[in-house]
């Protein structure tokens, strides 16, 4: 399953996910996890936030924010299992589980964002 055709695609997703997780997630955590609860920033009303989420650009942003870091996790965790637990012989199972979680999370995020 790990071959020269698929590996560049999964590594690209991993790499892009790392950038998103490293650059954008901390901003969201800082705003919604620290600054607003500590009242460093004005708390937006629920309707205002909902209107923001209904914007197509926000939806795309949130989709990318949810999806790519999951693929980053999947790739890193896959190699952690391979090398950490020495289970490279279970390649197919590990591959399916790790990327399966990422795909499931991506589909769920897409569904929630579309039906919101």
């Amino acid at each position, binding site marked *: 399953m*790990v071959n*020269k055709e698929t*590996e*560049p*695609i999964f*590594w*690209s997703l991993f*790499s892009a996910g790392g950038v998103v997780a490293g650059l954008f997630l901390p901003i969201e955590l800082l705003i919604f996890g620290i600054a607003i609860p500590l009242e460093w920033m004005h708390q937006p009303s629920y309707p205002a936030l909902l209107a923001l989420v209904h914007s197509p650009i926000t939806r795309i942003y949130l989709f990318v924010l949810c999806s790519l870091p999951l693929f980053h996790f999947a790739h890193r965790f896959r190699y952690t299992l391979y*090398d950490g637990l*020495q289970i490279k012989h279970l390649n197919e199972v590990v591959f399916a589980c790790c990327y399966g979680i990422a795909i499931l999370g991506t589909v769920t995020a897409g569904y929630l964002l579309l039906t919101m």
Partner: protein
Amino acid sequence: MSIPKTITLEVSRYSPERDPQPYFQSYEVPVKKEWVILDALNYIKDQIDGTLTFRWSCRMGICGSCGYTINNEPKLGCATFLTQYGRGPIRIEPLRNFPVVRDLVVEIGEFLEKLKKVKPWLIHEDGNGTGEYLQTPSQLEEFRQHSMCINCLLCYSACPISGLDPIFVGPAALALAHRYNKDSRDQGADERMAILSHPEGIWGCTFVGECTRVCPKHVDPAGAIQQYKIAGAIDGLKQFLMPWGQKGKQPKREAQKS
């Protein structure tokens, strides 16, 4: 801190035909401010025990022969001072991830095969890059850092993937391939990509980064491999999205022949 008069070196000894497993032998050697580990090993060889076996050559960090595991860290024997270790003892073992031939000497045949595999020479349609080609200082800067490798193998000793997966091409060879890919006189990037774009090549690296940390010449193999992966990912995505455009692909690089 005052320098002790002597220091103990615990050196790994092993003769595969005689010893069931490696063991440590202690030697008391004098400490001089300017002495490096290699001086101490040569002192042992000349004055105490002529049977101790280790590789060395230039004594100035050029030849890459005297890589040992010194107090659990892969280091060059000629660039590591005795005074760095206070009152000791200093434990010296062969480089990890290689079979031991005798004492501190490791078998590097497999590495040399891997090195040959990445085609670390100029590939040019005019021949084998033996002509004279112009290159600007900025073009040289593109790969100069990666050309400093002395094949000391400290990076292979530090890399956990090299230990776990013996067929992984490894840091120095991949960095060297990247060095030639970045060379404006070279046209062999596609050839090398075909060889190295597989799970035992560039994709085998999980970016632990130990290779870069231990490199005595600041080659940054981990960085080189990540840059190589970006090129590999672009190449792979192109093949995936445009399989018709990749057949009969010509080398992209153009070198200006003088």
